[in-house]
């Protein structure tokens, strides 16, 4: 079975600072995708970044980057130059490649950016 764990229920960061959100996962499979989703108060789930497990290079999207450690089954999200609009719930998610429809989500981290 696949599981995703986010051990930080809540975090805060000062505007313009950098914050890292943690995520670990468990699987016996070798081919999968990892995602970070953002859910602001509007409820809209927004894809922030995606990482293919077969790629060693960490994915980046503007101010968002990941630290993917496959051996440790760790997938953390770094937000640089935090902005007030980054305040949201952040969910880590996992999906096996080309196998079924199931996306496995962590329990989320509530991030507050302090002005």
């Amino acid at each position, binding site marked *: 079975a696949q599981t995703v764990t986010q051990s930080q229920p809540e975090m805060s960061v000062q505007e313009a600072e950098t914050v890292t959100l943690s995520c670990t996962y468990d699987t016996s499979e070798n081919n999968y995708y990892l*995602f970070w989703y953002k859910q602001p108060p509007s409820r809209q*789930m927004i894809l922030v970044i995606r990482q293919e497990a077969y790629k060693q290079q960490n994915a980046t999207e503007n101010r968002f980057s990941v630290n993917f450690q496959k051996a440790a089954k760790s997938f953390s999200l770094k937000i640089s130059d935090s902005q007030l609009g980054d305040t949201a719930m952040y969910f880590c998610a996992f999906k096996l*490649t080309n196998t079924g429809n199931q996306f496995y989500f962590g*329990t989320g981290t509530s991030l507050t950016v302090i002005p």
Partner: protein
Amino acid sequence: SAVISQKPSRDICQRGTSLTIQCQVDSQVTMMFWYRQQPGQSLTLIATANQGSEATYESGFVIDKFPISRPNLTFSTLTVSNMSPEDSSIYLCSVVFDSFNEKLFFGSGTQLSVL
């Protein structure tokens, strides 16, 4: 990018009644799913909406309680039947546009409160 419209955005319902939630995408999609997000919790997959056939339900969810339709490649409905307060949740429509891409995109969600 494509638009995923979900309605109603919120509703307050009486116990024992039913509510149908609609999800409309402005382009054809490969896969459509329905998720539930209970207060303060992560996302749980209810079912995969199959075009022209019965939905595929996850463990713990049944067709009598959550009937789903998907008459074409751009539209699906989820009905929450015989509601109880325990059904109070956010219900999210989600889609995969390209099975090779395997990114999950979400509608804006329906906030359901059952009294």
